[in-house]
């Protein structure tokens, strides 16, 4: 065991750099996927090719942008990038919803901002102690992982709350008819929506390292870090993602549910199919 510890604690191995030529060979992997798509007539050949091109262009561009941001290292540029990431994530979170309430954009945006910002500040001031506070090398990747989790949590919570309130409209009206306020009437749908949005996070905590080897940790190891350093970072990442999801989904569901009720405590739209 001690030997294993000594081995894993050892500093990272020299890194094998991926040259542009190596990258062109990696395209062969995509060609395999294209071949299978063609063989099975899946109609995905064009999508695979466009997807591969977009992956290369987007990631190379991001690489250059990150190099620029790291070199320039200005707090306002870093914050602007974080804001841009947040806006794109908010649009993605509500973009696939079937029902988009006009207030949903603001509710989701605010919830993701609060959930992500609180988590980022906690991690960068107390856990990782980033110096200076706006160091883009830490802030941008950490915020990306936080906001990505918040986005998935918010999307799940919104979708589940929509469906729960629709399917439980009879139960909600039964509560309202007994004099309940909107919080009491929607307690069960809110609970279900919160559970549904948090269960993937809980499952992730249970199986991390056994079923899944997280991308960030794998990346760090490939980039030459000691596995134990990578593991410690990964633990922080998993915990901060859990916090971001919990805060964001709690704000989204508790705020969004209010939009299903009129000021006269009526469920909208009108639930009864009878006339």
């Amino acid at each position, binding site marked *: 065991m001690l030997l294993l510890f000594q081995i894993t604690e050892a500093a990272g191995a020299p890194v094998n750099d991926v040259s542009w030529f190596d990258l062109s060979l990696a395209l062969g992997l995509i060609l395999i996927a294209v071949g299978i798509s063609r063989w099975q007539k899946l109609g995905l050949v064009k999508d695979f090719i466009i997807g591969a091109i977009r992956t290369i262009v987007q990631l190379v561009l991001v690489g250059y942008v990150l190099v620029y941001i790291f070199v320039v290292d200005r707090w306002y540029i870093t914050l602007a990038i974080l804001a841009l990431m947040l806006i794109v994530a908010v649009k993605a979170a509500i973009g696939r919803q079937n029902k988009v309430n006009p207030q949903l954009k603001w509710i989701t945006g605010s919830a993701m901002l609060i959930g992500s910002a609180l988590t980022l500040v906690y991690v960068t001031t107390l856990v990782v102690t980033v110096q200076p506070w706006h160091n883009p090398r830490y802030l941008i990747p950490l915020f990306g992982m936080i906001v990505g989790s918040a986005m998935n949590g918010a999307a799940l919570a919104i979708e589940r709350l929509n469906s729960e309130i629709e399917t439980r409209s009879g*139960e909600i009206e039964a509560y309202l008819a007994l004099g309940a306020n909107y919080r009491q009437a929607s307690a069960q749908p809110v609970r279900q929506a919160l559970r549904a949005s948090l269960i993937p996070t809980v499952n992730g905590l249970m199986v991390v390292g056994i079923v899944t080897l997280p991308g960030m940790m794998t990346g760090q190891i490939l980039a030459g870090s000691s596995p134990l350093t990578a593991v410690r970072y990964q633990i922080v990442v998993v915990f901060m993602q859990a916090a971001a999801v919990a805060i964001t989904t709690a704000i989204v569901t508790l705020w969004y549910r209010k939009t299903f009720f009129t000021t*006269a405590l009526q469920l909208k739209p009108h639930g*009864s199919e009878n*006339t």
Partner: protein
Amino acid sequence: MEFLSEKSVFELRDVRQVKGTQIVLDGINLEIEKGKITALVGPSGAGKTSLLRLLNRLDDPANGQIFYHSRPIAEYPVQELRLQVGFVFQTPVMFPGIVADNLRTALELAGKPVADSDGLIAETLRLAEIDASLFERDGARLSVGQKQRVNIARALMSAPAVLLMDEPTSALDPETADKLMETVRHLGKEKNITVVMVTHRLSEAKRASDTTIVMESGKIIETGATDFVFGQTTNPRVREFLSSGK
């Protein structure tokens, strides 16, 4: 404000209701008498449920005025109104837990103390004629008829002055439905509760109600004492509907 009768619990004036682009209630003028059982009958799509929902503000009308005890209904705090005007839905809804928990929840929502409420719960279950052996049973495991009785008992926990019932017997067999109607009739008399019920069973309206309102296509086409409506009306459309037996 001038009221036609001091006996009225509700008065509706020129009430119109719209769902989407469809007019579901059109020019409703109506009084609901205190302490009486009023039956709302009419073919499917006549607007009966839409009318009932207005009376405890599950919906508000598109136009017109509704008065509850001489005051515009919207002037009452809505939660207070709903404690006075109970609603029993067509499909019974059970809250989580046993039968007694369902009644305790209603008591909590009414802002009444739950501690030492066992006596009140037992008394209310007796009023709704629910067998004592069911008090501790999981609500989800009751028959539809038993669930509907629990829903009635739950609505009674706030001691309402009015009980609105939307086709409470529609899912029940005729025998169970008859028994439930008998219970409703006893309740009305024993607790002096005003009952307004939507029903598609004409025999039920005829036997249980004091007043009958016949609706068709969002309008009231006949209203009066049940004996008169069923026995002496000269309105050909009402006679046609009543003779259809629906």
